């Protein structure tokens, strides 16, 4: 497996998410250290999003802890012109999805487990080589 194959697969999965869930505009895959892995973006600065994603999820986890509401599922940030969702992908990776005002959040929540699983598989295969 060449170094390119996992990248293509990862971006393919991100782009496929955009196809399957209405309102997904851009997405970024990043590490818990704030580093960019791969991105499917158009207007946002992927590296900046990567840097923030880890912090966002981290704070979300601490808040979940403090409130005793169980394990964090995802962080949903709702804004005037859209949404940002950050979800963990395995132990070391994060997926940040940016959507517009009409983002189909219900569909995202249906699709994200499978998406996370696919991403995990590719990432694990990459590590294995």
């Amino acid at each position, binding site marked *: 497996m060449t170094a390119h194959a996992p990248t293509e697969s990862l971006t*393919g999965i991100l*782009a496929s998410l*955009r*196809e*399957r869930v*209405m*309102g997904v*505009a851009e997405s970024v895959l990043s590490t818990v250290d704030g580093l960019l892995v791969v991105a499917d973006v*158009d207007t946002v600065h992927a590296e900046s999003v990567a840097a923030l994603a880890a912090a966002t999820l981290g704070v979300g986890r601490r808040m979940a802890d403090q409130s005793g509401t169980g394990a964090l599922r995802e962080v949903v940030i709702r804004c*005037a*012109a859209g949404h940002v969702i950050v979800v963990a992908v395995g132990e070391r990776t994060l997926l940040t999805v940016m959507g*517009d*005002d*009409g*983002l*189909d959040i*219900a*569909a995202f929540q*249906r699709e994200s487990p499978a998406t996370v699983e696919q991403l995990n598989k590719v990432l694990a295969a990459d590590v294995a080589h």
Partner: protein
Amino acid sequence: MKTPSARNVPALLQALHQEGYTGTVRVSGVPGGTIHLRDGLIGAIETPGAPTATSALLASGRIEDDAWLAARAAEPDADRLDLHLVAAGLIGAAELEVVCTAAVFDGAFAMALSPPGGWELTEREPTLLARPGVEPRPLAEETTRRMALLTRLWGPAGELARVRPEPVIGDSLRPEPVAGGRVRSEPGMGDPVRSGAIAVDRVRSEPVIIGEAIVGTPATGQPAIAQPATGRGAPEADSDTPAADGGHPKPGRRGLTRRHQDLIESVNGRRTPRDLAFARGRGLYAVMLDLIRLETLQAVRWETGTTFDGRPSTAPRVLQGQQGQQGQQASDEPSPRAGPLPRRRPGEGSPFGDLGAKGG
């Protein structure tokens, strides 16, 4: 109350109309939607497939974000929000009716693009409403008309919904303009505009002759589209700097209306018509009509039959202009079904209107 038995959503809405039902119909599907009824009339439709009235008002800049939030805070019953917006002087009552009504028709159209999974009735959920609301029959008829028109103009609406247009780079193919300014077209004059004069073929008892067409900024003396001041008001950043718009040079603009030009600004090869509608705070159907026109004018283009990343699609090909199955998406992923729920009835066809196999 007992759910009326109905074989599809339009029939359900008819039955609820007879009963003067007030409440909510949740339609599942991809994407599905929520229909808000008041006294049997449809006041609002929410679906990820098209902007709501609220979304359109904010994204188009008609109402500023801060003013909106203040109105929401001041009026806790969203059903009464329209009265508050008008009282606060944020928008005229008649204009708000237009926006809300347009959104109902647009939402119905968007939902008709995908097959429904099923529905359930729940109680009233307050929301910004069209007053007095739309009757189900004209709604279904207009939806059917729209689907048929799109098929006639271009091809199956479901397929059009999935295109991702990109701007055509380069000089406009339109002819050089003659001297600008006010143009009058009068019978008997040999100027170039008159050559464009149209004899309208109407079924009337008397002949009708085009007298004149006047072009200019509307008589109010104000610009046709006001620039919104802050926040979300700007329908996304229409920047002139190449870096901001991804580096693509602007296509020729001669002869294109302002709204066509604005739409092209948002076209970027990634956005579907629905995405463009949300970006600009416009209706999905209106954006589709404009895109068809822009494609004809060669100002935008898109690939049909390929997937988003350029690989050939495995979906069945339907060539442009040919009659295809209306409302059927080329490559349907089966929508996930959670299993039967109480009071759910599977729908036939699409949520609004009988599509069947209509010729264009």
